[in-house]
């Protein structure tokens, strides 16, 4: 589907990281900006990181006016990319229902709904009866610790075949002349007079005046090659998957509202379950058991019949979580070095982050929808604080 070229000695731009974000950025550099002399360097294999293992959910129910239009762009792109890339991303518009189990959650939902309506994103409250109609398998027990009072519903939330995103972007970028170089680990970044000149890799030195970093879970490691400190910590996010069963659950369901447990049934029939990040920094790619226990407990409180399911697999992916939970798409202290830190919903932001990151690299100026997502927001104090992310449980 794509070539495996030897790295050339010099490119106009280099993207570090061959996941959805990096491949997407290369694609948009070529398509939107006509910059095709580009290399994507991937330490392992293409899409082998968090793009290859995540919970597939794309949505735009966020709190802040800087977040909603950015995530709406992502949903717009996801819904049209299959046609544009001529590659089936298997977008499945199931909708997402967040259970309301406290008055605080109700208040947050209403605030989100008001912000989202300004940007044309549908988000509406459901009564308990409407929730039961949409999810017949849900039978509220009177003994629940936090009784379900109702729900809030984003009809446009969807599930997307994650590998296809990497493969589709890779094939389209390759067709426009981008070199995708796998098994090529970046070991150093060279700079002269405060400007990037080259990257050192396991396959030799490659020169470029523009280098973009899109490495989920290793942002601090790569940025530290230039002495760049970042307002992030790296934390594991776990998920686990049951044996496949016949269709019982159409919508993506979030229990205990925004900081709780989420589950959905994949197209293959598996029940996919996840919760928030582990509560301390780690690069270990394994998670702590208390998260599994906690999430399973809250799932069984709502869906007791799932207690009969057998779990097939479990994993922990490393996320770079920014202090305020929002993505960082930014210039840095070194000229020509740009960063895309996906934060906690790296998959759902993939196309929007890729498009705005390509704009930043091509123009050395932020895309209008990512102007507020730069590193400078930390010094100015204008954070984009998000609660609706798995970072803040």
């Amino acid at each position: 589907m794509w070539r495996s070229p030897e790295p050339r000695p010099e490119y106009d731009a280099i993207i570090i990281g061959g996941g959805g974000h990096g491949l997407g950025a290369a694609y948009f550099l070529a398509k939107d900006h006509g910059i095709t002399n580009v290399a994507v360097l991937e330490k392992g294999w293409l899409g082998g990181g968090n793009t290859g293992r995540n919970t597939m959910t794309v949505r735009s129910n966020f709190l802040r006016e800087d977040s909603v239009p950015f995530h709406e762009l992502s949903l717009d792109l996801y819904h049209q990319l299959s046609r544009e890339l001529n590659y089936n991303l298997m977008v499945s518009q199931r909708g997402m229902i967040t259970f309301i189990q406290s008055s605080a959650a109700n208040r947050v939902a209403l605030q989100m709904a008001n912000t989202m309506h300004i940007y044309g994103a549908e988000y509406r409250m459901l009564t308990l009866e409407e929730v039961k109609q949409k999810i017949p398998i849900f039978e509220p027990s009177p003994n629940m610790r936090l009784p379900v009072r109702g729900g809030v519903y984003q009809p446009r939330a969807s599930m997307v075949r994650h590998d296809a995103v990497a493969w589709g972007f890779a094939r389209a970028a390759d067709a426009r002349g981008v070199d995708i170089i796998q098994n090529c680990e970046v070991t150093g970044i060279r700079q002269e007079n405060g400007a990037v000149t080259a990257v050192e890799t396991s396959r030799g030195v490659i020169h470029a005046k523009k280098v973009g970093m899109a490495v989920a879970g290793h942002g601090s490691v790569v940025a530290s090659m230039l002495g760049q400190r970042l307002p992030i910590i790296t934390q594991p996010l776990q998920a686990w998957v049951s044996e496949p069963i016949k269709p019982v659950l159409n919508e993506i369901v979030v229990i205990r509202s925004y900081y709780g447990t989420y589950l959905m049934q994949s197209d293959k029939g598996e029940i996919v379950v996840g919760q928030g990040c582990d509560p301390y920094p780690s690069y270990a790619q394994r998670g702590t058991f208390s998260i599994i226990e906690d999430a399973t407990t809250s799932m069984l409180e709502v869906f007791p019949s799932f207690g009969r399911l057998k779990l097939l697999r479990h994993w922990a992916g490393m996320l770079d979580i920014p202090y305020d939970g929002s993505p960082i798409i930014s210039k840095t202290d070194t000229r020509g070095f740009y960063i895309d830190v996906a934060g906690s919903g790296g998959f759902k932001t993939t196309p929007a982050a890729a498009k705005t990151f390509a704009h930043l690299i091509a123009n050395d100026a932020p895309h209008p929808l990512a102007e507020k997502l730069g590193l400078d927001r930390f010094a100015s104090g204008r954070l984009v604080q998000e609660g609706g992310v798995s970072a803040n449980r």
Partner: protein
Amino acid sequence: MLEIPCPWCGPRNENEFICGGEADRKRPKDPDSETDEAWADYLYNNANPKGRVREWWWHVSGCTRWFMIDRDTLTHAITQVEDAPE
């Protein structure tokens, strides 16, 4: 799961603790004379190393003591424990 050696209670389950972040950051003596960038660096930036890190932990569901540990973020090995200075 981590087993955290609290200097007062001995080894206890990680669920009893809260990680308090990197221990080596120093609060500027006079914040008003700092630039915004330097103050933001103190507030928000982390070394976030892949490997050894020195960090604060709080035994919130135990003796409520604060202390520092040396922990490897890749292997989760804890090599040194140091009580908070009086």
